[in-house]
């Protein structure tokens, strides 16, 4: 079924009786050409592009809960391509280009909104670091504008310019940055993959990975054994546990990141704003809620919930930066489990086991990466060679020290990225 305005009109006039399921609910087959473990954003987009770009249609996505139930459904929905280190730059640039065509490609409105992202800086040193970043973005072919204080004031007049603890010196403006409706991304990819023949199997937990003579042969699940010669492990948040089924110990630590949304309010924040000194970023959803977040809770966790000190810190940063939001009321907070890697950048790589591929370590940048991650992961699984835009995401970079992508510069401490 193709979605269109006309379809809505005709359905509306005929009692909305013609709407069909967006995806099937199939029983798992005994064998697939490829299995993607993980029905989150990355797993679904991997399956979608396996089918669409590489013609692999005998593919299953195995999800232990419901699709889109992981971090794709619990984030602050920011989409941007503002990285500066080689390896990251080209990847996120590619991802943003995919975002820009995603609705047409999926025939599903993910509400990708290029409302512009402004990263504020608060010292000359930060300005110069952002200049390096902005120049790298332009070198990559993306957009960036360096705003001075007055330039920021012009578009964000409600920030505290006069009395802030860390005065606003300016901002790096990324006009193509923005947001998207997070759940819709998962659903859109799910529907697209299903339409191309991919089996989306929910409530199917992988309990073992079958390996014979160094080759993957299939997986054990709560719904029986399933054979496949290619298995992609796309389970950010649980990467260490699933990789352990294949005897691997990953450079990953799991941490909780909280996010918050307020009650619905009439439009007040038109951009995505990031406050460097306070680890605070905010935008307003189309429904009117202010959506914002901060730093990790800093301790290893699988609990999908946070604690008060970081929540308070985030609110404090909000009050420091934009005291005009003080009377917005926080409605809901949630926590996502982040695959934190030693350099803050992800892994998309083959493993030492033939046919087993790894996609992990997205830290808290995974949402915007969904399209390119699936694109590149599908390429890797289908062709056995890394995609040129994800060639830097090697697992062995930590051991060799070659091509580390530590954008934060905080080093091999997982929770500091």
């Amino acid at each position, binding site marked *: 079924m193709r979605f269109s305005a006309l379809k809505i009109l005709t359905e509306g006039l005929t009692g909305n009786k013609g709407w069909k399921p967006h995806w099937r609910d199939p029983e798992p087959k005994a064998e697939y050409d490829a299995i993607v473990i993980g029905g989150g954003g990355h797993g679904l987009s991997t399956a979608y592009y396996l089918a669409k770009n590489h013609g692999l249609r005998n593919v299953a996505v195995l999800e232990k809960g419901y699709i889109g139930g992981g971090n794709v459904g619990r984030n602050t929905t920011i989409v941007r391509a503002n990285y500066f280190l080689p390896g990251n730059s080209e990847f996120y640039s590619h991802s943003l280009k995919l975002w820009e065509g995603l609705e047409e490609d999926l025939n599903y409105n993910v509400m990708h909104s290029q*409302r512009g992202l402004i990263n504020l800086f608060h010292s000359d040193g930060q300005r110069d670091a952002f200049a390096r970043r902005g120049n790298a973005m332009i070198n990559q072919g993306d957009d960036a504008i360096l705003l001075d204080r007055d330039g920021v004031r012009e578009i964000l007049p409600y920030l505290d310019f006069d009395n802030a603890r860390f005065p606003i010196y300016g901002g790096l403006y990324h006009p193509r940055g923005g947001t998207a409706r997070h759940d819709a991304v998962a659903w859109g990819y799910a529907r697209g993959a299903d339409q191309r023949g991919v089996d989306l199997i929910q409530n199917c937990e992988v309990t073992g990975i079958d390996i014979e003579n160094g080759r993957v042969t299939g997986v054990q699940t709560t719904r029986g054994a399933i054979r496949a010669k290619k298995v992609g492990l796309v389970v950010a948040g649980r990467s260490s546990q699933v990789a352990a089924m294949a005897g691997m110990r990953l450079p990953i630590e799991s941490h909780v990141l909280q996010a918050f949304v307020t009650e619905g309010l009439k439009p007040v924040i038109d951009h995505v704003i990031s406050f460097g000194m306070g680890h605070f970023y905010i935008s307003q959803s189309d429904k009117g809620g202010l959506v914002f977040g901060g730093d990790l809770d800093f301790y290893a966790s699988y609990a999908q919930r946070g604690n008060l000190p970081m929540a308070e810190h985030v609110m404090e940063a909000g009050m420091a930066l934009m005291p005009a939001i003080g009377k917005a009321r926080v409605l809901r907070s949630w926590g996502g489990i982040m695959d934190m890697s030693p350099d803050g950048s992800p892994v998309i790589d083959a493993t030492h086991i033939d046919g087993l591929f790894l996609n992990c370590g997205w830290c808290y940048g995974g949402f915007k990466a969904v399209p390119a991650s699936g694109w590149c992961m599908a390429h890797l699984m289908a062709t056995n060679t890394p995609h040129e835009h994800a060639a830097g995401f090697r697992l062995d970079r930590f051991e060799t020290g070659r091509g580390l992508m530590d954008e934060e510069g905080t080093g091999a401490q997982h929770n500091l990225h």
Partner: protein
Amino acid sequence: MRIDGNGLIDRAKPLRFSFDGHAYDGYHGDTLASALLANDIRLVGRSFKYHRPRGIMTAGSEEPNALVTVGQGAAQDPNLRATTLELYDGLEARSQNRWPSLDWDLLALNDLAAPFFGAGFYYKTFMWPRAFWEKLYEPMIRRAAGLGALSGQANADRYEKAFAHCDLLVIGAGPAGLMAALTAARAGADVILADEDAVMGGRLNAETEEVGEEAGRDWAAGVVAELRAMDNVRLMPRTTITGAYDGGTYGALERVAMHVPNPGPAPRECFWRITARRAILAAGALERPVAFRDNDRPGIMMAGAVRAYLNRWNVAPGRSVVVFGNNDGAHRTAADLLAAGVNVAALVDARLGAATTLDVPFYAGQICGTEGRKGLEAVSIATMSGIEKVQADALAVSGGWNPSLHLACHMGGRPDWAPGIAAFVPRPGMVPGLAAAGAANGAFSTARCLAEGAGAAQAALADLGLKPGQPDIPRAEDGAYDITPLWSVPGKGRAWLDFQNDVTVKDVNLAAREAYRSVEHMKRYTTQGMAPDQGKNSNVNALAVLADATGRTIPETGTTTYRPPYVPVSIAAMGAGAQGKGFAPERFTTSHKASVAAGAPMIEAGLWYRPSYFPAPGETTWRQSCDREVGFVRGAVGICDVSTLGKIDIQGPDAGAFLDFVYTNMFSTLKVGRTRYGLMLREDGHVLDDGTTARLGENHYLMTTTTAAAGLVMRHLEFVRQGLRPDLDVQLVSVTEQWAQFAVAGPKSRELVNGLLDTPIDNEGFPFMGCGAVTLGGIDARLFRISFSGEHAYEIAVPARYGDSLFRTLKTRAEALGGGAYGMEALNVLRIEKGFITHAEIHGRTTAFDIGMQGMMSRKKDFIGKTASQRPGLMEESRERLVGLKPTGDVRQLTAGAHLFNADDPAIRENDQGYVTSVGFSPTLGHYIGLGFLKHGPERIGETIRMVDHLRGVETTCEVCNPVFFDPEGGRARG
């Protein structure tokens, strides 16, 4: 309509208030909601999506419809629940989400287009053409959405945060909570009793029943009075526990001064962090609606709320009321209405075989529709014998009660389904240390609430090691709770589940049909339960509808996750104290006042403030000042406060060995009275920090760190000391704050220093990198001959109490020698001239090799970061490595953050050769100089490279040079 009665309003204290500009009367003790109802105001808001007319539905914080805005200008406070807003004299409230007025709302047109606006419709459209999303569709949607509006002005009210600790936190002061608090307090426990109402007592204040021999509300008042008199009890009315967190920590929001017209310096709200060894959840239960056609009209209200308005506020919600329910609560409501003299037009009971002894028109059946656009006019009742229409201006509905178990589920636990009451109840142990009691635990009679409250308190006392006394539980109503589940009445039309987000039974069914069968999918696809009431009024009903649509039981279908906060919390409360300068502590050097007095702009350096430059008369730009100050140091003598650098006292027999382990180079070999530059790595082989360390005695060193990394280094050193090398006998103490330290730099520095010292020094006794104790006017001080400018220089440290005085003295004397104070701008130029690095260069991604300091990595010993620094990827010649840059093209300017390219290559990522980290105009050399990182850097000295700064529109060619621009032999510092 106000009626007679002896509720909890004070008729001797009339109040004036306004709603949408019209003036009304109320009484002290009213909420805005009760006062509006007393004035026969039924239409109070518009729904989110269809802009349907809405009225007051509840009497608590769960209210979905009656959200109003209060206050003008910066005080404008949106989305306040009229049901919890205490009336005060002069209160001005406004309705929301309507234009041009509440009565005539243009977007009510949406309601007519409802067939096209079903669940998830926006995922299926608004996609063409692509550019229209940001330009047309999204702005349109955003304007239509949202509820209240922020003022756009900075907050001007006071908010605060506080901590509290107790043995037992009792959440809710209804019968169970009061009984629990009383039992625990009498046994000597430290008790906090929190309730979101201004008056404690819970449902006892809303009902007519008796506890013991007295009216329930009188019993409650008596218990509260007893508790108030006890030292070990803290009563927290107007306080909602908002979240349960790990380790017995609870968040709470107190409305401190929202109920007074002129609060003065009292905070509007206080956000509490309460640590409790044990907690009892006695938060009661919330009544749930029933979904039937057009069940959202103004005048349709929860039956329990009707009783509360009648009994507590002496307000009748209508003149002719229909009561509808599937449990005994409906009968109680009809009885209370009759007792209050209000006409009961019909009592409708959905239970099979239901009957009543009340003298009212009784129907065994269900409500299947309503009429009345802006207020209820009639209801349709479906019975075995057909459909009958009954005129009424109010409808009281009870679909049963849901225990307020939210807090018990905040740690991710899932509740149990209790079929007997057709509701979820908390599973014990979901939050360690927290037990539910009373209605929150599914106990729906007052007698059981009292018993459970006492029992929970006794269990908590036993856990706390306190001796529980025998509680004196008064006699109370103990009726059975007889319910037949009824979630939605079948039929055509729209039946609301989520009143705020306009989610109907049809929407849930559509979601299920479109494969959104998981409860989380249904919630997210329809937005069910995501409005300000967080599904308190609708989640269980929606879940039941979904279960029905998917052929599963309710427990099989499961619940969504309950997440904090229980009620919305203002950012201003939870972020209190951070507005303005309060976000982080401010650190002031001892020279701060003198610097400000000298006109220096102060800039942030971490938490510190440091002078940017010291403007002289006639100077109009910072560059003029900076150039002059650089000249002070190169030509005479400059003074700079360097106290912000971290200073760590390291003592003990193994101090030298300890330093050898944390620095790349050797310190155990340093002579007493000497100072050495040291480089510190992280264990991953990258540079952590640098600085000089002096050996003050055989077992005594003084380390300096950069300003930025002082805390980080201290933490790191303590980790090494305690965690890696507990074998070493060494002690660390920060002395950053003890000493005010000033650089005295320039050819005349010794002259200046000797003018201060009680015993002058000379080059032999105090050579470059020497250090030692000195006295100034009898005061013990420390002198270090170190230089961050490349000049003959000292740093002199005195106890901080003398810092202000010494700085003024140094500045005056430097000025007399043709020099003066210099700020961060000059300091930066001076260090770039010498190729000295800062965190602009050691930004966390660079190695000793990258900055040309591989020679400082000792081969003779192990040290932190040694092994990892030798990974092949960190040793490659092709890495971006430190160089100096001089502009050679027509544009004689460098900019930090620019990238470097080979002369003929396009400036694209594939050709990137490096980047510029630090730049400055060198007045000494007469041109810009810069530091940067370049692939193969040191191998390319003398090459020409192109610098491109797209952002600032600067492009130039540069000569790659040695990073030491000035006095590369270092003679000036030694001389």
